[in-house]
Each structure stands twice: as C-alpha cells, then as structure tokens.
C-alpha cells in the first residue's frame, strides 16, 4: 500500500478486564470513583457519558483488580455492571486530533472483522478496548494503513516491547505527591458534543463519517464510547467545532442515515495531562469530587494514557477550571478555539 500515514507507535496493555456500568443519579460516577480509589485500584482506562438522567461507564482495570472492582460495585450498587475479562487496550499515537486517523483505524479493523468493545482518545492517543484474543490480528491490521518509524513489522514491534511493563510499574507505584501536578491544562471552546446511539451498527461502520470530518478539516477534541441505558446499545460521543455543525450533520446523515444522533450545543472541552494520570488510582476521583463541589454538570469524560479529558457546558467552564486549580497544581491554562 502506498497511501500510508506515518505515526509514532502503539502500545498494548494486557491482560485487563472491562467493566461496563449503567446507573442513574447526578453524583453516581463521583461516588463510584471514590470507592474505587479507596481500594487503590488503578484505572488505565475509564470513560463516562451522560445520557439524560443516567450514566454509562466503561472502566478498564488490570486483570489482578477485576475481582476487587466487581466486589466494590456489587456491595455498593448491586449487579449494575457487566464484565469482559481477558481484554486488552491498544493505544495508537499520535492522532493529532485528526479524524482521518480514527477513520483509517476503523477501516483497517473492519477489513479484519475486528470490532472494538470501547474506545476513547487522549490528546495524543486513540485507545481501543478489544478482546485479548484479537490483539495479534489488531496489531497486524495497524501495519496496513500506518507506518511506524521505530518498527517496520509486527515482529519488530513485539521486540520493542521488552521491559516496558516493568519500567512503568516501577514509577507508577511510587508517586507520592501531596497535590497532583498537571503538565498542561487545555480548554477548547466553541464545541458541540455529538452522541450517536449504536444499535446493531458497528463502531467501525460509523468510522466512515470520520473520514468526512477530516475532509472538512475538523479537529476531534473528544472521543469516547459508553454503554447506553437501553439494553444492548452503545453510545459513541465526540466533539466537533460548533461552527461546523451543519456540515458535520450532513456528513453523518449521508454516511449513516439510519443512526440516531443527538447534539448538545455549546460545550467546552478540558484536557489535563499529568504524570501517569491514566495509571494511578485516585486521580479521576479527585477530579470528580472537585467538579461536584463546584456543581459542574459533567457531560462526558475519558481517562486514558496520561490524560483526563472532560466535556462541560460552556457556561460552566470557569467553575470547572477553578475546581481543577483547587485540587491540582496547574502551571498554566491554554485556551483554544
């Protein structure tokens, strides 16, 4: 293939378990994440999306923590979750907020009949949650649309992974900050949050829309999936520039006319990157508690790699920033349109 995109690389985290939770109540996610933090369970991947008065969450934990987190949820809330053991998280970087990267990934997966169970992006990385037995096919599939300067083949990539896991666990286990520090806090204004309800429609089919967004030079500042309160359905949530709402609406209707999509206008996206934020227990809980204390109505959130990205109503962006600055050490805030 000649038309390949050069990327930096990809990582795979396994073995992990994906826990999907649906529940109601404004403070539910904050309370759940606090209980998870109390048990010192690391969250390498977590997403939540509000849907009316309910919340859909996908939480990924290391396999060793599967039993512990299930017990926490069961004891406090009952059987409101499903578990997908033997899962893996594949993270591809950097996406440069370009929807073309997501589209190419979805297309490559579709060619191999691979369907992600969940996905989310951080400022640099697109993470997909898959069944662990799909990982070999998935990593091979990446070499169709993408090239990586550090490895030319899946075999090269495997060799490059030696020692990585030990290295990251060495540091993650040892953070002892009194007040977590953020490397960068960015705010994107003038966005709309789009939610597509996926019935039998696969995520990879909707991926064609992302190529349409890329053709219109739109930047994707937030992307996450979550389970819907309607059984068997999933929500694909993403943000696009408000100024392009007519154009992206046309793209979605043209490519996937049957999908049910909903827009929340006038939202802001905040993205905070800190040392191993995606691997350390308590970071999401700290953020959620600070937002609740300022009565911020969080609409969606993702925590992957080393970042947390959240969506809030535009008029609540100032209390959001105040809340973050109260709980975290923030050297500077960068605002972007």
């Amino acid at each position, binding site marked *: 293939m000649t038309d390949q995109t050069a990327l930096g690389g990809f990582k795979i985290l396994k073995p992990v378990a994906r826990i999907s939770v649906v529940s109601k109540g404004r403070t539910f996610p904050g309370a759940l994440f606090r209980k998870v933090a109390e048990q010192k369970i690391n969250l390498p991947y977590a997403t939540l999306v509000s849907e009316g008065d309910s919340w859909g969450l996908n939480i990924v934990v290391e396999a060793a923590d599967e039993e512990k987190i299930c017990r926490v949820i069961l004891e406090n809330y009952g059987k409101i979750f499903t578990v997908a053991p033997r899962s893996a998280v594949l993270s591809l970087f950097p996406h440069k907020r370009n929807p073309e990267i997501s589209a190419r990934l979805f297309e490559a997966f579709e060619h191999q009949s691979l369907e992600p169970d969940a996905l989310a992006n951080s400022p640099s990385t697109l993470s997909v949650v898959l069944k662990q037995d799909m990982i070999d096919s998935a990593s091979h599939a990446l070499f169709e649309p993408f090239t990586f300067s*550090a490895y030319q083949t899946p075999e090269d990539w495997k060799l490059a992974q030696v020692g990585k896991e030990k290295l990251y666990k060495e540091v993650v286990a040892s*953070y*002892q900050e009194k007040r977590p520090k953020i*490397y960068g806090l960015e705010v994107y204004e003038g966005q709309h949050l789009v939610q597509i309800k996926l019935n039998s429609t696969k995520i990879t089919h909707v991926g064609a829309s992302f190529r349409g967004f890329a053709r219109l030079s739109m930047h994707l500042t937030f992307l996450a999936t979550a389970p819907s309160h309607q059984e068997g359905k999933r929500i694909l949530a993403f943000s696009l520039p408000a100024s392009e709402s007519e154009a992206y609406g046309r793209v979605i209707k043209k490519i996937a006319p049957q999908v049910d999509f909903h827009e929340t206008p006038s939202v802001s996206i905040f993205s905070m990157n800190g*040392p191993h934020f995606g691997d350390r227990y308590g970071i999401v809980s700290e953020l959620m508690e600070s937002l609740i204390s300022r009565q911020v109505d969080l609409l969606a959130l993702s925590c992957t*790699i080393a970042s947390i990205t959240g969506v809030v109503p535009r008029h609540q962006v100032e209390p959001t920033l105040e809340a973050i600055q109260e709980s975290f050490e923030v050297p500077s805030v960068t605002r972007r349109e």
Partner: protein
Amino acid sequence: MTGKYILVVDDDPDLVETVAMMLESKGCDVGMAYDGVEAEESIKKRRPDLIILDIMMPRKDGYVLCAELKTNPQTREIPIILLTAVGEAVPSTRYSHADGMATEADDYIPKPIDTESLWAAVTNLL
C-alpha cells in the same frame, strides 16, 4: 526561536504532545520520538538544534542515549535537556534527579515538569 528544530523524546505520548504544542506555539519546529532507539534514528535523519530527553524509556534509556550523543563528535554540541524522574514525588527510583545531574546533559528538569520552566531552559540554551 522561529525555525529552531527541537526533538522531544519521551515514552509518554501525551507528555510529548503537551511539550510539542507548547514549543510549536512559540514558533519552533518539533520532532517527536517515543524511545531512545527511535530518537537515535530521528537524529540521523535530521540534526536537531536541541533535544528534550526523558531518562526512563524502554529499549534505550535517556542516560545511555545522552552519553552516546555527548561522546560522538558529530552530536556532542547538540544541547540536551534531561527530564529526570523526580525527587519528591517519586522518591525511590534509579532514575532520580541526582542521578540525572551526574550525566553530561546541558540542563536538567525534574518531573513532573512545568512547561514554563522547560521553555526558560530551552531559551537559555538556544
């Protein structure tokens, strides 16, 4: 600083992105690499004006790469800012700030980094 080419090397892609965005906003041209071996390849292809180098990376860590670059006559003049793993927040690691300062790097920034301090260090060396 417009047109200066800076190579950012760290195995945390989100940190690379944060630092790259900061440098690009100041007019720098930015290259990215995610481990020591990839950085080495990148330097062969295009000589950077400065390297921001994490120490704790797979395949080839920042200590080894820094030592190699500083002993090679073709690369020893390239300024290197080493990102060291912290004193206070991460007290027990072989990648401590003190160990980082024992290298021949031109400057040392402890993690968690402050992008303002990093920019001050960059402007000081270029």
